[in-house]
């Protein structure tokens, strides 16, 4: 036990500063849940009541897995809402007619492997919902690439196969502006929650208004995609930002406190990199959609980005060589004490350039 408390002390210093207070975490998580309700309602409207079942199964599995994992680790289970958020987000990035057993496997993977095996909330390296989605995509490639056209009836269980706007073989009959409007409202094939850009935008604005997220990551991320699509000949920038899961990823996934960099500059690099990757994957890669993979890849780079924009970036030759990797507790405390100073000084230096 003594060792574990030491670990927790370290944690407060090392990971993002947003989550040291339990009450705060809870509040934040429930605001996110609230913001996610709108895309879920949209999903149910466009793809039928079955999608609500998918969301429920996903959330219940996530909570159960979290409970079991805590039991295995002999830790107290706290209902902080993070499992609900993960469950909801995971459901939102699934195809509308995914079998429920696949939802269970995926949601359990999100919590057990991607979150709890890394230490639980605040310690995970990758965004659980996206990692779970990627895992299910690789496992059951067939299931994850069968899309249906919107049925626009809550009770319907119909499924007319259709391609997604970004997928190969998608052809749109109407004019470009009609396409934009359909994309905006979500009247196209795609994942449960990622088709309607407008609903996600409203949810995202709620998060911004309540201060749960900052504008930087979504704006830079979407902006980069828009700009690059505009620069590459033959690509439609408006289409690229409205289609697929860019809005959902930008507002709800990339902004995850735990898996994105801590500093403003780091977040800028993170969002820019993710934007570049989205375009690379969509235009040159073999997958139609790249939002999930772009965020996962940038999650992997987050520790390196954090190092680079932190007071003692890699590559600088620090005067006191031994504390270059301050892993010991004592070294840590001094590190924190002089952090703000150095941070601003490096920022200024970069700004002058």
């Amino acid at each position, binding site marked *: 036990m003594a060792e574990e408390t030491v670990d927790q002390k370290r944690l407060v210093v090392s990971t993002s500063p947003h989550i040291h207070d339990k009450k705060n975490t809870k509040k934040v998580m429930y605001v996110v849940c609230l913001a996610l309700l709108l895309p879920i309602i949209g999903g149910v409207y466009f793809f039928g009541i079955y999608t609500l079942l998918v969301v429920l199964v996903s959330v219940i599995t996530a909570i159960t897995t979290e409970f079991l994992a805590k039991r295995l680790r002999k830790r107290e289970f706290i209902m902080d809402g993070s499992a609900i958020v993960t469950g909801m987000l995971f459901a939102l990035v699934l195809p509308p007619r995914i079998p429920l057993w696949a939802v269970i496997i995926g949601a359990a993977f999100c919590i057990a492997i991607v979150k709890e095996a890394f230490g639980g909330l605040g310690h995970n390296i990758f965004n659980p919902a996206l990692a779970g989605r990627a895992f299910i995509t*690789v496992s*059951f*490639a*067939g299931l994850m*690439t*069968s899309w249906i056209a919107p049925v626009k009836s809550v009770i319907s269980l119909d499924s007319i196969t259709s391609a997604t706007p970004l997928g*190969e*073989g998608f052809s749109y009959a109407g004019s470009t502006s009609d396409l934009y409007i359909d994309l905006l409202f979500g009247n196209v094939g795609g994942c449960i929650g990622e088709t309607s850009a407008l609903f996600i935008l409203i949810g995202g604005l709620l998060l911004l208004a309540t201060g749960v997220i900052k504008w930087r990551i979504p704006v830079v991320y979407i902006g980069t995609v828009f700009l690059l699509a505009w620069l590459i000949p033959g690509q439609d920038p408006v289409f690229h930002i409205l289609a697929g899961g860019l809005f959902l990823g930008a507002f709800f996934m990339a902004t995850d406190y735990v898996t994105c960099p801590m500093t403003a500059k780091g977040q800028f690099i993170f969002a820019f990199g993710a934007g570049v990757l989205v375009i690379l994957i969509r235009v040159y890669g*073999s997958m139609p959609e790249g939002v999930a993979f772009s965020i996962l890849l940038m999650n992997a780079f987050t520790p390196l980005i954090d190092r680079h924009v932190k007071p003692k970036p890699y590559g600088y030759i620090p005067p006191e060589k031994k504390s270059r990797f301050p892993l010991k507790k004592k070294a840590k405390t001094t590190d924190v004490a002089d952090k703000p100073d150095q941070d601003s000084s490096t920022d200024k230096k970069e700004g002058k350039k």
Partner: protein
Amino acid sequence: MSKTNFRADIVPILFLTVVVCISVIALAYVDSITYEKIETAKLEAFKEKLSVHFSDMTDFTSNDANDCYVVFTDNNTIGYAVKTIGSGYGGTIEMLVALEPTNLSSTDDLILRGLSVISHSETPGLGDKITQSFFLDQFQEVSFSGIELSKTGGDIDAISGATISSKAVINGIVSSIEDRFDSLVELVSSVEVS
């Protein structure tokens, strides 16, 4: 002094040399036993691949680069085959295209007899469907100009969810055959002369 030098410097080198010599002799011996076997195993494996398309074949001949083949039944030419390479999702896709024995004035005359995949590294469960018969059978009795996705006016339906792999197969066939057409013609004419 010189004696210790001999012990310290020369003996180890001599020892290493002896070990290397024994190793070379042993390997040369093993190679002499297995060489024939490995070559026949390769040949048999390849013959089997060809006989999928030419069930009555008795023999075949190939060019120097070993990518174009003429298939015989008792000295009668019954068809041609070309090794083709496509660049797929996870690496190169190596294929064998069997061709009907048409006259070879241009690539437009070619008619495919069938297609088989020799090696690939596509994603299991998705891209690796290119090895399944529902996809491969589409390449039977198709003219060379029809080797295109049905979406763009050809005769081949892509595998749903694995368009990249399907495209890789088609692009590989088209570009490899265009590249190797001249050497196929050369091979065929040399066979006819002899």
